[in-house]
């Protein structure tokens, strides 16, 4: 009863509320300005602006249906595949507005890779899974270069030692955690600048999760990572900055430590202390 009152009370509050915390960073890689997303009549994201810094891991948390995945999918225009979805606003990557109709999504998605909630390796060999991206983008001049990219990507994804003897076996024959790391290797292979991860560990057991988290930690040396997660501990473990979404609003954003120790907004506090979500 008490919880419900809290939500109803705060819902009216947040409708016009500004984001708490600093949305800007010193060296931004992606700048999102006034993003509004509608699914048909329903508004999924309400005027969200946020910078994503270079080589940082930004975690996006919030209750189900708060729009964090939708926002993530705006960053490489995966929302284009949903017919009823309309995205308004501006997202700048390398001074180019990627939401512009004229932007070609093919090079954009090569620059902004994505790892999905459920591991989705192609029903092809492990080698083919990783080599597919470089092949369609023409990143390798010959077989030797391609082999190199595949081995490198698998090594970076921490999978090479486990699969080096069976690169010809289908990717679907791996375990769930291995499949997810294969998907990460697949996105690394096209040397993206940003990697988007949509709840990458939600289908994995704790040990596989630990491996993926370790990997995320290592990858931030070379990539900017945006991760959506349901597990607050995970956000605390892997990210430098955390953004809290609630009902399509970006409620609060700040350094991860600060969000989890001294949240400024009442909603953030309620969520991370487990009062709802």
């Amino acid at each position, binding site marked *: 009863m008490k919880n419900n009152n809290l939500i109803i009370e705060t819902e009216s509050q947040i409708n016009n509320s500004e984001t708490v915390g600093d949305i800007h960073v010193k060296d931004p890689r992606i700048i999102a300005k006034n993003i509004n997303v509608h699914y048909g009549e329903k508004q999924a994201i309400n005027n969200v602006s946020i910078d994503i810094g270079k080589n940082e891991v930004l975690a996006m948390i919030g209750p189900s249906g708060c729009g964090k995945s939708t926002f993530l999918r705006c960053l490489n225009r995966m929302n284009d*595949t949903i017919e009823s979805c309309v995205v308004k606003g501006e997202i700048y990557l390398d001074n180019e507005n990627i939401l512009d109709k004229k932007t070609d999504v093919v*090079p954009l998605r090569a620059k902004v890779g994505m790892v999905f909630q459920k591991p989705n390796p192609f029903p092809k060999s492990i080698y083919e899974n990783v080599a597919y991206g470089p092949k*369609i983008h023409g990143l390798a001049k010959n077989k030797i270069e391609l082999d190199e990219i595949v081995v490198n990507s698998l090594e970076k994804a921490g999978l090479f030692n486990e699969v080096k003897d069976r690169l010809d076996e289908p990717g679907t024959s791996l375990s769930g955690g291995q499949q997810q790391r294969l998907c990460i290797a697949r996105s690394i292979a096209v040397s993206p600048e940003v990697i988007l991860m949509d709840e990458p560990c939600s289908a994995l057991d704790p040990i596989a999760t630990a491996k993926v988290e370790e990997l995320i930690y290592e990858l931030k040396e070379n990539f900017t990572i945006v991760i959506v997660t349901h597990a607050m501990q995970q956000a605390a473990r892997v990210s430098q900055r955390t953004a809290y979404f609630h009902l399509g609003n970006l409620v609060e954003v700040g350094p991860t430590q600060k969000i989890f120790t001294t949240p400024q907004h009442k909603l953030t506090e309620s969520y991370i202390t487990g009062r709802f979500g």
Partner: protein
Amino acid sequence: MNNLKSRLAKEKRFKLYGIASITLALFLLTLLFVSIFSQGYTAFQETKIQLNINFDEKIIDPTKTKDWEIIKKSNFNLLIKNSISELFPEVSGRSKKRKLKKIISNSAEYQLRDYVKNNIEVIGTNQKIWVLADDDVDMLIKGHINRALPENERRIDNDELKWIKFLESKKLIKKFFNKTFFTSGDSSESEQSGILGAFIGSLFALSITLILSFPIGIATAIYLEEFAPKNNKLIDFVEVNINNLAAVPSIIFGLLGLAIFLNFFGMPRSVPLVGGMVLSLMTLPTIIISSRAALKSVPPSIKEGALGVGASKIQAVFHHVVPVALPGMMTGTIIGLAQALGESAPLLIIGMVAFIVDIPQTMTDPATALPIQIYLWADTPERGFVERTSAAIMVLLVFLIFMNSAAVYLRKKFEKDIG
């Protein structure tokens, strides 16, 4: 407790129903096969009579030219007549002699002519040659005519029976594997008729159907499933109509073909080309619907993964979705083709029901198809065609079983490749 008991009983009962229906289906299927096989297996043999032919130079090449143009016009029938008279010197009188000659199929003279054409050096020599027996003799030898019946109730009279008995005693009449059945077209004489013409006709028509309906059907399915705008009135209209077309009786497609291909475009009648076109009209909805189902069953996450690494929509569809859906699409296509193979109604309408003796050489030669040949033979009262009808059904069934196993094999193979 009681509840559990009744639930288990229910389950047991349901299993029993299932087993009963499968048994019934299998029993009926066996009955069908047994009846077709028992009626038709004799058609795979033909009866031949050995004649000692004297290739008399005076008859076939009186001027000693050895010129085929002259030889081919000579009277080969006379050779046969002479040979038979030698065998049965006691037969005299015109009508008896004619009756005697009738135990030999009238294809014998053409057989002799071809023989001489290929072996011109036999002129002037004696050769022992097996020639086809008449269909009534064939039936008697195969036991379809009861020798114990009174003379006026059987098609072979006492004279003929006596001659055949004589041939049997001299081992001059024998059953061979029926090569004629597999190497010739239709004929009004059952002993000379074969399935090859209809088989080739079916093959031509089916290849046209495959060439037309496979690419069109699959392209349509891929477009509708992956690229067509959703919630578009026109697309919805097209979809509803494709589903309706699948339920349209095949004879309507025949009428459509008659009106459009024959009357409007003026294409020739009775040809496999038009037959194949009509059959592809009929097969298209089946292929489109099953291909769409196959595409729908591909998990969308695969396409998303491809889009996620920067594949364009067309790359994602053709590199990842279509290969996974391909086994399903092929199965649908082969089942559609198997349907087309057994279809007769639309072919009747466009005139592929004619009596055609020649084996079609091209797609635009008049031809029949296997089911039509079965229909034509089933319509003929002669005993020789009864067994040939069953044999033709067997050929059609073997063709169908072959196609269906090809479908299963392809599906298994591609599924294995994809993993």
